[in-house]
């Protein structure tokens, strides 16, 4: 088409080229981006499989159904592995892959430098392997690694330095990945001045800006305090300060889990439902709101902390409640887009249109069920966010009940569903074991419904989270609703179904991985229909990333400036609390209980 003789021919040639291009699988158009996405997914799914196996061990151990796998004092290494592998590595490697795909697809260009992309992937992987070695070394007496500090690693509990060093390396890997996507965008911007930022790239960039702002907290926590402490370079830290730095990061990370799901719900789910996105401008507003409101809310994880004035908690709560807004807006857009699709497919009636949705398509079913559970998780989250009612549920089983609906379903099930649609495009292979894939979202949904409802109710009865044996000699819990044995049974059965669901998913992915190319046409393509209301309806100011990043920073300074200043003012290492290395429990137990 480079030899066209006049403008008109060029245009026609390009259009037809585009049509052919859309029919080509992503892997053929952008081989480098497809490779990085595949590598990220490979790590992500491996982490999911291991994390899910640890999950069933916990579910059966806690509920006292089966305690033959581990001793209770090893439960916390299992729990650390479950949290870190699933909440950090499964989710964020998946995000790295999806965002690599989304920027390449929506900007229409392959990676600027495949070697650089491979470098950030390698750094993330190296970090993840180091962290995992530190955690699983705890099971083997001969290996001097111990890291059963859970995924929140609150000081003064102290893990092996490898744990913190690995976390730092992995974090830098995520920063470089973001740099890669920003660079792609800038190249595109150079070629396309004045054009609206494509929606998927817009979502990637707002999410990454949020990530840069929020990970600063955990980077300072790890590099200035915890890593030096574990290496013996400093001899004490202020646990309130390090905990505050953790939660400065710890709440935005929640949105780092959710944003890939939102990304899929906005840009892919409407098409799968047979329709198109309801509103592009609203999608942009939602992501801007997440950018500016995600970080100044971390104190809502510290409602029960001494040493933080009530006023700061109130500011965080108000921000948190307003953070409900983008999720409420998302609920509207997602349901409206699905209804639009259903009516395009011939659906009618107030509710009967739902029957016209493609429930047998695993990519659709997974995302739709995930969205449904997210609504339930949102409401239990409102209870957590209310700073006075929070006292009833703080650190009880209610809390993991809540986040297994959000990160454990809204994010995780959407990611699995997205894989059913995306994985064939980045491999050029038709999805295998399709029947298993069709069943899998329902297995997950039922498992989570059982486990999560019981965890919420157990939390209301006061049963604590993060405990190997929530059965005490001194007293027993009184259920508010149902009975404790019934809740235990639901948790055990639900947890088993969830591990089965993760296993089914990994089986489908493995079978597809090993399949040959060309065994039947791909069932999917990545062409997206235009939204009902397109970007031309969105004010241009929405694309002003510098403005929104500045607003986000100002809100962070308002929410965190004074409280962090007051924690640091008495000396950044005071009150000086000496470290308590994990894994030396026997002497401590003997001393106190002996």
């Amino acid at each position, binding site marked *: 088409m480079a030899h066209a003789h006049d403008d008109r021919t060029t245009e026609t040639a390009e259009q037809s080229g585009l049509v052919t291009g859309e029919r080509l699988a992503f892997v053929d158009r952008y081989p480098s981006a497809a490779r990085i996405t595949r590598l990220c997914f490979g790590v992500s799914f491996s982490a999911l499989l291991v994390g899910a196996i640890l999950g069933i061990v916990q579910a059966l151990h806690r509920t006292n159904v089966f305690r033959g796998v581990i001793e*209770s*004092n*090893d439960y*916390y290494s299992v*729990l650390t592995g479950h949290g870190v592998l699933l909440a950090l590595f499964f989710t964020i490697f998946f995000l790295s892959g999806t965002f690599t795909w989304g920027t390449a697809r929506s900007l229409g260009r392959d990676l600027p430098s495949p070697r650089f992309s491979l470098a950030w992937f390698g750094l993330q992987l190296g970090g993840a392997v180091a962290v995992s070695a530190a955690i699983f070394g705890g099971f083997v007496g001969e290996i001097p690694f111990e890291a059963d500090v*859970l995924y929140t690693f*609150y000081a*003064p*509990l102290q893990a092996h330095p490898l744990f913190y060093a690995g976390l730092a390396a992995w974090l830098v890997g995520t920063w470089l990945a973001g740099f890669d996507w920003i660079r792609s965008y800038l190249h595109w911007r150079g070629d396309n001045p004045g054009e609206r930022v494509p929606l998927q790239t817009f979502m990637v960039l707002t999410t990454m800006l949020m990530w840069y702002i929020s990970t600063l907290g955990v980077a300072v926590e790890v590099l200035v305090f915890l890593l030096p402490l574990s290496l013996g370079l400093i001899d004490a830290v202020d*646990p*309130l300060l390090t905990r505050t730095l953790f939660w400065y990061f710890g709440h935005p990370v929640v949105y780092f889990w959710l944003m890939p799901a939102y990304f899929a719900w906005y840009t892919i789910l409407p098409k799968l439902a047979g329709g198109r996105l*309801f*509103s592009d*401008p609203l999608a942009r507003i939602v992501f801007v709101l997440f950018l500016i409101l995600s970080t100044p809310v971390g104190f809502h994880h*510290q*409602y*029960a*902390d*001494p*040493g*933080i004035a*009530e006023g700061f*908690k109130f500011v965080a*709560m*108000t921000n948190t*409640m307003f953070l*409900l*807004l983008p999720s409420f*807006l998302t609920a*509207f857009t997602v349901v409206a887009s699905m209804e639009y699709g259903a009516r395009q497919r011939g659906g009618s009636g107030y509710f009967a249109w739902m029957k016209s949705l493609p429930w047998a398509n695993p990519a659709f079913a997974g995302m739709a069920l995930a969205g449904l559970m997210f609504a339930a998780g949102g409401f239990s989250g*409102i209870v957590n*966010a*209310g700073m*006075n009612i929070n006292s*009833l549920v*703080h*650190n*009880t089983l209610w809390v993991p009940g809540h986040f297994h609906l959000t990160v454990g379903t809204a994010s995780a099930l959407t990611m699995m569903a997205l894989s059913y649609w995306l994985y064939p495009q980045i491999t050029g292979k038709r999805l295998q074991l399709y029947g298993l894939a069709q069943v899998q979202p329902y297995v997950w949904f039922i498992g989570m419904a059982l486990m999560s409802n019981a965890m919420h109710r157990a939390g209301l009865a*006061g049963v*604590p989270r*993060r*405990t*190997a*044996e*929530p059965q*005490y000699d*001194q*007293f027993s819990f009184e259920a508010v609703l149902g009975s404790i044995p019934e809740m235990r049974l639901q948790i055990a059965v639900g947890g088993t179904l969830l591990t089965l669901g993760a296993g089914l998913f990994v089986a489908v992915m493995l079978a597809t991985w090993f399949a040959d190319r060309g065994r039947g046409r791909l069932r999917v393509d990545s062409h997206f229909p235009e939204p009902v*209301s397109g970007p031309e*309806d969105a004010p241009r100011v929405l694309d002003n990333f510098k403005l929104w990043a500045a607003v986000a920073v100002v809100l962070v300074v308002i929410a965190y400036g004074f409280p962090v200043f007051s924690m640091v003012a008495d000396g950044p290492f*005071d*009150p000086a609390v*000496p470290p308590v290395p*994990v*894994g030396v*429990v026997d002497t*401590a*137990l003997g001393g*106190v*209980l002996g």
Partner: protein
Amino acid sequence: MHVHRFERVWLVAALSMIVLFVGTVTFGAVVAGYGMVDAEGGQVDPTDPTTSESFREPGVYNGSEAGHYDVYVETRRFAFVPGTTEPIRVPANSTVTFHVASADVLHGFEVVGTNINTMAIPGQKAVVTAEFDKAREHGIVCNEYCGEGHHDMAGTLEVIPQSEFNASAEVQ
């Protein structure tokens, strides 16, 4: 910018709900007088709170007025002092202020079946006040992971009838 009518209705409804939620919490704090754990407890020695002026030997003390009691609880791996080896005992129809401080790592202090639920962070003193109107026994659990014996860290709080509460023996 074009916003569909349904979207506008939804937006207003969502915003109203958010304002309502913030309103209920504000009502709880200002009118109903629900006091959060906050910074009023000040700092204490992070490895031996009893040496600090704002802390005392663990135990039950008479409060500033009749019917009020102060309970000083030290949390350490893996016990509440008092609470684990001997129960905390307070009379019914009393107002009790718990002063909780940790001597090693983070712990939780949750009195099961009540809204007493606070973190114990080394170097900080948590202060939380509650009213007990009925005689009954409550469990106390540590609900923050504190090490490999965490699941053994529990205790009891006995709210006993006033007639059976022997102040001279129980109160320090």
